[in-house]
């Protein structure tokens, strides 16, 4: 119990890490969702070459473990002359990695869309960007809500890997607390509970959004 006292005394460290994690997750979620939605367009393209290129990107992301990808961004990009600090390269890695997953799940939802809907859109004179934004995207988003929720939880979990490039997120702060005061049990339990709270919040929000979407359909 003594360990929990120490963690409580230094709660600002854990809370700081938690805020950092939330910030990183929020940025990564918005970024990867936007880029993923945009990447869905080439994925569904009728041109073989365009669709093929996008598929290669998605499949590569699905084959790389996230940790390897973080190192690739952190150590690999500087050798191409692009330099980020730890925090930004962590966020960039999360965004680029999850873009592939977001695009894939949106693509699946798009592929399941009834053809009549798009044909009706054509009949009303929707083409190109307008067709995508007004006709295709809304039902795709509604049907993909549960999967997007799962991916958000995956982003929360992936963000813990950023500790390896010394981004001061929750796991990193818990580790430094445990190495300074030797309170491994209390500090990691605190981290696990905070991750759990975050993910349960995401799950219930997604559940709520899903009921709203069901009601609109």
């Amino acid at each position, binding site marked *: 119990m003594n360990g929990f006292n120490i963690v409580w005394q230094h709660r600002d460290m854990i809370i700081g890490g938690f805020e950092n994690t939330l910030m990183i997750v929020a940025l990564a979620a918005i970024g990867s969702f936007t880029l993923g939605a945009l990447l869905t367009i080439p994925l569904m393209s009728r041109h073989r070459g365009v669709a093929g290129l996008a598929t290669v990107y998605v499949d590569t992301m699905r084959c790389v473990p996230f940790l390897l990808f973080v190192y690739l961004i952190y150590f690999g990009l500087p050798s191409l002359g692009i330099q980020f600090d730890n925090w930004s390269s962590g966020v960039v890695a999360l965004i680029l990695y999850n873009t592939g997953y977001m695009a894939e799940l949106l693509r699946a939802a798009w592929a399941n869309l009834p053809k009549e809907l798009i044909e009706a859109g054509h009949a009303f004179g929707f083409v190109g960007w307008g067709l995508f934004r007004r006709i295709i995207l809304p039902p795709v988003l509604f049907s993909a809500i549960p999967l997007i929720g799962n991916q958000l939880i995956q982003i929360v979990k992936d963000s813990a890997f950023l*500790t390896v490039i010394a981004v001061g997120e929750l796991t990193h702060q818990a580790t430094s607390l445990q190495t300074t005061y030797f309170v*491994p049990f209390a500090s990691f339990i605190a981290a696990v509970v905070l991750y759990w709270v975050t993910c349960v919040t995401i799950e219930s929000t997604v559940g709520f959004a899903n009921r709203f979407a069901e009601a609109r359909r």
Partner: protein
Amino acid sequence: MTAHDYLSIVQAAFATVSMSLVSIVLGVPLGLGLALIRWSRLPLLNRATIVYVSIVRTCPSVTLALLIFFALPEVGISLDPVPAGILTLTLSTAAFNTEIWRSALMNFPRDQYDAALSFGMRRGLRLRRVVLPQIVRSSLPALVNEMTLQVKSTPAVAVLGIVEITRAAIRVGARTYQPLPPFIVALALYSIIVFAFVRTQRVIERRYARADAS
């Protein structure tokens, strides 16, 4: 990169594969057991399983690995990095497998179960002869999917100092000051491993299909 560097990464691939396999071999039946606990609604254990699955599913594997490695000694259980890594991977894959098995059990047609009951089959026999063969088949794709995710989460145990593919690649990169080539080798190795799992699944599915046809 010298031949020795390539060899070191390939050697680390054996660590990745064997740790994944051990955790799968332990985690799949463990998940089945937990799913059966939830299915049969055993009073206290059911609750415990719900909590376990909820926490472990949302816990990053790095954090879980650190918790097991650094915190268990506080309660008198100290593990070496490799057992701690295997324990981490097993606990996390078991939580996901529980959900997969459970959804297969939920979707299992009730009438077959009742039919087995009317033939006077005992609980164990019903489970072994009627339920299991069918849920194994229906959850196979989801289980293999989880196995590939499992392979991809093995780098989490690198924080305990276990040398698996990712860590071996980083070592080579740090020594040669050229991080890209070893990373590409590592990426290729992961792809091969994941592909092997998917391939095995296809073979098993084809065998099932052939058994159906005959």
